[in-house]
């Protein structure tokens, strides 16, 4: 048996379809035009390999064990900021999500306004807001929590609204038929249906916030980021190594946890059908 070696596109003339060619060509032309802006320089890239290797070599040091308690404290602070910001964002985005869902909003104007507000809130990265809030309330974890909560309200509110918009209308009608009021319809007709998806969203946001919280320290907004940047700038590789490893461990742990929880929720939802 000989393996098939002919590469042929499953189209009439055996060539790639036109939209595929067009999009690839567009991207390539855009990259060619912007190459000078990004300062792409192969010689520089290859030349930097030696430096990368040297950097990797520098990482093979004995970690600074005396630094460990401080590291754990900073890591705990990072995790605490993540939780607090997510909790605040959850509290704020639940009502906002309800107002921004087309089928739950009291009025279409409210819907439009809240939608636009949410997209404004999530437009800028946490780091920019952290910079602004640090200038407003001073250094420390408080501006970090504010920046995280502010941006993730924008994301969570949008996700919640989209989840509420796809709930089964029959159950809403059923609750309405019992004479439920405006709030009761939303509380007992819509929210229970959207709840499994909400949990998935919250896990996703928790994950996102943890990643963001690890770098917020860069602008003085608390967490491990400050130590990370300082050890990098001062070439303290014996500190950089444990910091990088601890970030990797914590992020991976939460990543796995949220993956597992999400797949359990999806399977649970399938079992019911």
């Amino acid at each position: 048996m000989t393996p098939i070696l002919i590469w042929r596109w499953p189209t009439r003339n055996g060539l790639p379809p036109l939209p595929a060619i067009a999009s690839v060509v567009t991207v390539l032309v855009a990259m060619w035009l912007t190459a000078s802006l990004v300062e792409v320089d192969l010689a520089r890239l290859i030349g930097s390999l030696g430096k990368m290797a040297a950097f990797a070599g520098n990482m093979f040091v004995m970690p600074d064990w005396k630094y460990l308690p401080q590291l754990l404290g900073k890591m705990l602070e990072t995790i605490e900021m993540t939780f607090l910001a997510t909790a605040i964002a959850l509290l704020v985005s639940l009502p906002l999500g309800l107002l921004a869902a087309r089928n739950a909003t009291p009025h279409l104007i409210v819907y439009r306004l809240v939608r636009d507000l949410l997209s404004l809130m999530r437009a800028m990265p946490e780091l920019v807001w952290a910079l602004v809030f640090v200038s407003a309330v001073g250094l420390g974890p408080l501006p970090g929590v504010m920046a995280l909560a502010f941006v993730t309200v924008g994301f969570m509110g949008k996700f919640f609204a989209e989840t509420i918009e796809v709930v089964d209308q029959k159950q809403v009608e059923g609750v309405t038929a019992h004479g439920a009021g405006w709030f009761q319809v939303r509380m007992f007709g819509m929210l229970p249906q959207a709840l499994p998806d909400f949990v998935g969203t919250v896990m996703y946001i928790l994950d996102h916030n943890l990643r963001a919280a690890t770098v917020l320290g860069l602008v003085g907004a608390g967490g491990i980021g400050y130590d990370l940047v300082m050890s990098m700038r001062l070439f303290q590789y014996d500190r950089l190594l444990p910091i990088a490893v601890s970030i990797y461990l914590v992020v991976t742990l939460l990543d796995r946890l949220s993956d597992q929880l999400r797949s359990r929720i999806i399977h649970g939802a399938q079992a019911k059908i």
Partner: protein
Amino acid sequence: MKLKQTTPPSSALPPKPRNLFPVWLAALLALLWLIVHDLEISFETLAYGVADMGEYFSRYSKPDFSELSRYLELMKVTLATALWGTVFALVVAFFLAPLAARNLAPHPLAYRAAREILNFMRAMPDLLLALIFVAALGLGPLPGALALGVHTAGFLGKFFAESLERVDKGVYEGVTSTGANFPQIVMYAGWPSILREALGYVLYIMDRNVRMASVLGMVGAGGIGLALHDTLRMFNYGQSAALIIVILVTILVIDYASAWLRRRLS
């Protein structure tokens, strides 16, 4: 006619389900209280902060657009960085994702290795990667593009792999039964089945990369971030406001464009 009245035997009633929600809520609130206490967030500071906030934000009320052409130039660099990072991520993910899909991987070891590589790339924050690449390559947008590429390759690869795992088994079996080898299965059964989904993910990542590219400048990786960082540090509120507006408008335009494209895709 008289209805016979029956009372259900009390023992037949199922026990009322225990509602543990208040317990969980109380535990959560206690945890949050502990966190607030531990982070030493005082509500007094917050209250003063909020009171000052109005005055503080009023300083941004006069955006100074005198250097608009320079800002637009910087924004162009930022967008180019995001584009190069996204394409880099796409290329890496294109090769790694089929190996990281459980039902496609030629060998369990290849699956594990690809998954771990993707996990590692995802776990490293892009700002940390940018710091490392800036140290190796020098200042400029290229290290930024590389950092974005490496970090988001982890995300794209994971998304693609999960999509490939969700494809109906029959599709793969059909192509396998013709004697196709691994690359052929991937090219003829894998990618065509998830094309729309994959394009949606690429748009999402492009969106995300534009946002991130606008802050990478803070660590010296080119683009508009450095300018914003400098003007904020020098308390130059007018120019900061102008920069924030430029970033905001660009991101909103990209946001709407990608939402429009995604609607057309589905």
